[in-house]
């Protein structure tokens, strides 16, 4: 009645694969970007599990850096998305109505 560390690794692998599939099948750029975030999170789960296995905090420090990188990436990525949609709205009249909703 206890949990071997491998279970956490399996869960992380599952989340990573789901995220990767999501990037491939979704068309919405924002959702694709969310899927990448899911992948980074599953890597963090792996790192934290390995930190526990190895009895060292290094894995947690690595996960901490990954969070910083993900935050920076999201900032730039969403800025690009906003600009992209703004541009599309101003160049493509058909889309303006949809975007106003």
């Amino acid at each position, binding site marked *: 009645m206890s949990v071997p*560390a491998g279970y956490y690794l399996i869960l992380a692998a599952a989340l990573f694969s789901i995220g990767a599939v999501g990037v491939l099948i979704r*068309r919405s750029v924002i*959702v694709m970007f969310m899927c990448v975030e899911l992948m980074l999170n599953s890597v963090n789960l792996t790192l934290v599990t390995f930190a526990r296995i190895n009895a060292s905090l290094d894995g947690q420090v690595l996960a901490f850096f990954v969070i910083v990188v993900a935050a920076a990436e999201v900032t*730039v990525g969403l800025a690009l998305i906003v600009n992209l949609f703004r541009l599309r709205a101003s160049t493509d009249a058909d889309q303006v109505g949809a975007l106003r*909703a």
Partner: protein
Amino acid sequence: MTPVLAQATEGGAAELWTFIIVGAVALGSAFGLILMRNAVHAALMLVLNFLAIAVLYAVLQAQFLAVIQLIVYAGAIVVLFLFVLMLLGVSREDSLTARVPGQKTMASVLGVLLFVSLAAATAGPFLGDASVCGSEEALTGTGDGVPCLGLAAVNAAEGNLRGLGFLLFTDYVWAFEVTAVLLVIAAIGAIVLGRRQEDPSELVEPGSTVLPARRGSGSAATEPGAGPTDADEGAATETSEATPSEGEERT
């Protein structure tokens, strides 16, 4: 931390039940993320997933990361996503149509293959008795599987937060300082890409020879030769002073 989680970090039945429930939530929300048609629903699924992972961090003796996960991921990153979704109003987009016929099947097959190989490669050695973290088998080296030592001793010596702090400012001090570069770039990027109004005359160097702007590029309206007036420069300074918060807001 609730008493249940406190028990869970010590292993045993509490950890198993926490893992089953929270793991199911994490998996379900991940599937929800990639299957929900509505982008806002997908973002909510992402929050749920991040919350579940935060609980798992707490169980895995990473208390500080659990809190950071809540504040940064669930609190800031997903809110940013939702903010952009609301701003652009793209939530009704029907986004599940495949770009190439058969792409979904292909992607799913690839995903299953990826999962099977990753799970077999990573989890394989860690499924035996000794891989139960902090268990007697793990500490004494009996039992099968690669032993999971557990962080109880490490966290007890300095505490999770102090231990991480020491690491950050000793072994990882260079990496920590280097993230400054990353954050500066993120701030500049948000400003460059997100700035709504821009004076075209600022994009041309006063006093240099330039070909006239292309027709239809929208910047031909102003005369490049005029040079920066006080008003222009004032506006430039204003944007620069409000740098970090404004950049964040506009993303």
